[in-house]
């Protein structure tokens, strides 16, 4: 049966390690009970917004600071949507 199922079925063999890795990253983070992350993002958001606003008129929703946690490093994603630069200068 196992011979046949490994030939013909796509068991859960390949997905279980992915599940384990995802859980390890998540639980490591949840156990530390980190609240500082949200503080950091809020501060970054406010300060980045300030800097941008000096030069370009932007709405605060158009500046996005998001986090993607990894095993050893995390990624900060900073997304800034600016209006058409030419037209905004004219107005």
């Amino acid at each position, binding site marked *: 049966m196992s011979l046949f199922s490994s030939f013909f079925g796509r068991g859960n063999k390949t997905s279980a390690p992915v599940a384990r890795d995802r859980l390890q990253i998540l639980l490591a983070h949840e156990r530390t009970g980190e609240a500082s992350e949200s503080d950091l*993002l*809020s501060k970054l958001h406010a300060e980045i917004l300030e800097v941008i606003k000096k030069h370009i008129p932007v709405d605060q929703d158009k500046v996005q600071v998001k986090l993607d946690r990894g095993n050893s490093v995390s990624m900060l994603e900073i997304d800034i949507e600016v209006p058409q630069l030419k037209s905004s200068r004219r107005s």
Partner: protein
Amino acid sequence: MAKVLVVTSGKGGVGKTTSTAALGAALAQTGQNVVVVDFDVGLRNLDLVMGAERRVVFDLINVIQGDAKLSQALIRDKRIETLSILPASQTRDKDALTAEGVARVMQELREKFDWVICDSPAGIERGAQLAMYHADYAIVVTNPEVSSVRDSDRIIGMLDSTTEKAKGGGKVEKHLLLTRYDPARAARGEMLRIEDVLEILSIPLLGIIPESEEVLRASNLGAPVTLSSPDSPPARAYAEAARRLEGEKLEVTVPTERKGLFARLFKGRN
């Protein structure tokens, strides 16, 4: 005009979160703007099922309490651009979910999205009531099994009495989604019959989702089953259900045993 949909059941473990993710992804794949909202405060799961758990920083409670803007808490799906998730809080308790706060967030979501899909917690208490309160449509997730049907009946009663629509003299449009349907057991007469469930609950059938190991695989991978194995029986059933939600008239297909020759040979004769 946005449509607000609640995925609810009363009973836990019947497939609400699985269905929220699968239907949300299927609707978003047609290009509509979809947000899935986790109302299960304290036991959030939708982020895991959707594979967004590493990117959760702010949640629904943060938005309600004014600690974060809605746009900061929304997580855009990496695979489908038009799909977003609003996670529940893992640490706060349910009381942080205030009726006014939820109303405000729902209003804002209605402005931003075409579909707002609320994943209800189990039970019939506050959390479940808040999840259904603003709904225009309800998907009642039911397994063909006595306690699930009984709980669904209770939930249908609540949808008709304690929602905003009901209080305004209107009606929440209800649909039955029969999940974890096992064709083999049905063939042996070991499960409640579909016709019987339909007759007892008497709400229109949105779809029948077969029990499938693809669902476990999908949750392992952190992808809605409609994305992880789009050709599998549960994914097809969810995709069809999504099309019915969009108003298409499609006949519901009853899953049948799809065991091939080998499986039949090895099961032996009986």
